């Protein structure tokens, strides 16, 4: 049984097909990144999976429970941190946590204990008894996530958890998410940040216009568009053929001299690293005096561009 299993989800708002046959399978205990530009349908997908929105079509199960048929039971298993930090501004951090704990009908000492635990864990002890309207964006986000963890959900949904955070808070948030993943919580996280999905997620689902356009680990996605490329410069043009021959076994495609150059060549290689030392050794053995070796790893931006013809952060079409 998977933590999340959705098939053919559709949802239309007026003319907009927010979800257009979305499939999503998330194994238990993994962190999945749902990556897509503005309006791709990320929030809509999260809202359907967290029982807030009824899909027009398709099926979705969370922890094996049907979100449409049995929303109440689904809600016992999930935690939701929406796109906008949902905290009660005029209550303190502690009161916000206790509020949610009360809703879960925990016994009184457990309410206090759980709130204290989470304040500690999310580094909010000092701010615990201050009203949340004085919190920084990062603190508010941490409180927001803490609130969704009160009952120890087995599946946690985070809708753009780092949008609007400064770089330091973002890294802090990454640690938190990573740790939850290590503890066995299944995390579905949506993001527009390519490096975020790359850093956190065990697997990434790229969605655009309400459907999945690619899926896999960051490395797999990069391989889909040709993987990494190695680029080698040597001192003497006379050694070019020898160098090409030395690189050939490491390459996944032809080794070619760069346009207009007699000493710089590049080739596609498999993703995953380890190629540079091998390349240097091979070139040395072949007697080609190496000046420079670099490996360019495609970013998820490149992936998105290749898959959709658009950059992830804008809506402008780039070429065709």
């Amino acid at each position, binding site marked *: 049984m998977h933590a999340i299993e959705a098939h053919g989800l559709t949802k239309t*708002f007026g003319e907009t097909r927010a979800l257009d046959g979305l499939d999503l399978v998330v*194994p*238990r*205990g*993994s*962190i999945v990144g749902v990556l897509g530009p503005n309006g791709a349908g990320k929030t809509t997908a999260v*809202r359907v999976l*967290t*029982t*807030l*929105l*009824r899909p027009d079509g398709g099926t979705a199960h969370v*922890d094996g*429970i049907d979100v449409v048929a049995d929303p*109440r*039971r689904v*809600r*016992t*298993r*999930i*935690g*939701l941190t*929406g*796109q*906008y*930090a*949902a*905290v*009660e*501004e*005029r*209550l303190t951090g502690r*009161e916000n946590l206790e*509020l*949610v704990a*009360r*809703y*879960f*009908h*925990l016994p009184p000492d*457990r309410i206090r204990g*759980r709130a204290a635990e989470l304040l500690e864990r999310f580094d909010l002890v000092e701010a615990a008894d201050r*009203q949340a309207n004085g919190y920084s964006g990062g603190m508010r986000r941490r409180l927001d996530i803490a*609130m*969704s963890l*009160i*009952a*120890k*959900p*087995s599946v946690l949904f985070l809708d753009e958890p780092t949008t609007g955070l400064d770089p330091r808070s973002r890294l802090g948030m990454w640690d938190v998410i*990573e740790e939850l*993943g*290590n*503890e*066995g*919580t299944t995390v579905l996280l949506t993001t527009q940040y390519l490096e975020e999905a790359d850093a956190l997620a*065990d697997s990434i689902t790229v969605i655009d216009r309400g459907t999945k356009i690619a899926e896999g680990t960051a490395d797999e996605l990069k391989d889909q568009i040709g993987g990494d490329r190695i680029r080698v410069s040597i001192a003497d043009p006379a050694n070019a053929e020898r160098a090409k021959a030395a690189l050939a076994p490491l390459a996944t495609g032809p080794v070619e001299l760069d346009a207009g150059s007699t000493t710089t060549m590049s080739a596609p290689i498999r993703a995953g690293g380890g190629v540079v030392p091998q390349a240097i050794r091979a070139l040395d053995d072949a007697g080609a005096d190496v000046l420079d070796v670099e490996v360019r790893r495609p970013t998820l931006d490149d992936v998105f561009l290749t898959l959709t013809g658009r950059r992830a952060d804008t809506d402008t079409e780039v070429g065709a």
Partner: protein
Amino acid sequence: MTATETPIDTLIDVDAPPSGIGPALADAWTEARRHLMVIPRNPELLVFSTIQPVMFVLLFNYVFGGSIQIPGFDSYEQYLMPGIFAQTVVFGSSFTAVGIAEDLSRGLIDRLRSLPIAQSSVLVGRTLSDLVRNAFTFVVMLAVAFLVGFRFGGSLLGALGATALLLFFSYSFSWIQAFIGLSIGSVEAAQSAGFIWMFPLTFVSSAFISTDTLPGWLQAFADVNPFTVLTNAARALYNGNDPGNELWLAIAWATGITVVFSTLAIRKFARATG
């Protein structure tokens, strides 16, 4: 990092989420408590929401007090004040629309809807806490009315009955406002949408004048206006007169509005924010 299979020890039993009337009431109380805790921390809002009715009491009393004679009442205060009380409690219900629109736009409604609680609890808690707020405003206003010469003309029991009737009406209107707040979602829009229609409702009525003075078609509206019914019943009780049928009619209106609009609002809530 690879996927682990460590089971998560959820603190609540998936197969037996709290259900039934007991937990639902507890949830409603949790929600009401949240709003009640916030009220004293936002004193500006409380002060301004109290100033408005107090100002109405003073303005109407001193501006119109000398010029309006109502047959059967020895002073305009005795006629006017119950009308202002009624208008105030009904206006006060608009806080419900604004509060819900605020919770919607801040994502709090989403958070609450993702919890395994009775969906109706959120609105029941909200309307009950607004009732408490309106009762507070009412007490302040009543004190000011006493200062300008208003007196209970009948028994204390009658006055308590009138007050209970007014607050019941206010409560029923909170459900209309809950429905409006859920339908609109934006705080600014809810502010006007919750308020604007109450002006004709309360002014084209017997609250400030005797409806006999109105032109025919307006008078026809004023006479069937539930707000007129409410005002007349409360006015009779505060002055020690017999409210007659209007008492039962007023109770029937408040009950009907509560039943219809709580059903609509709770249904809307359950599939809110499409």
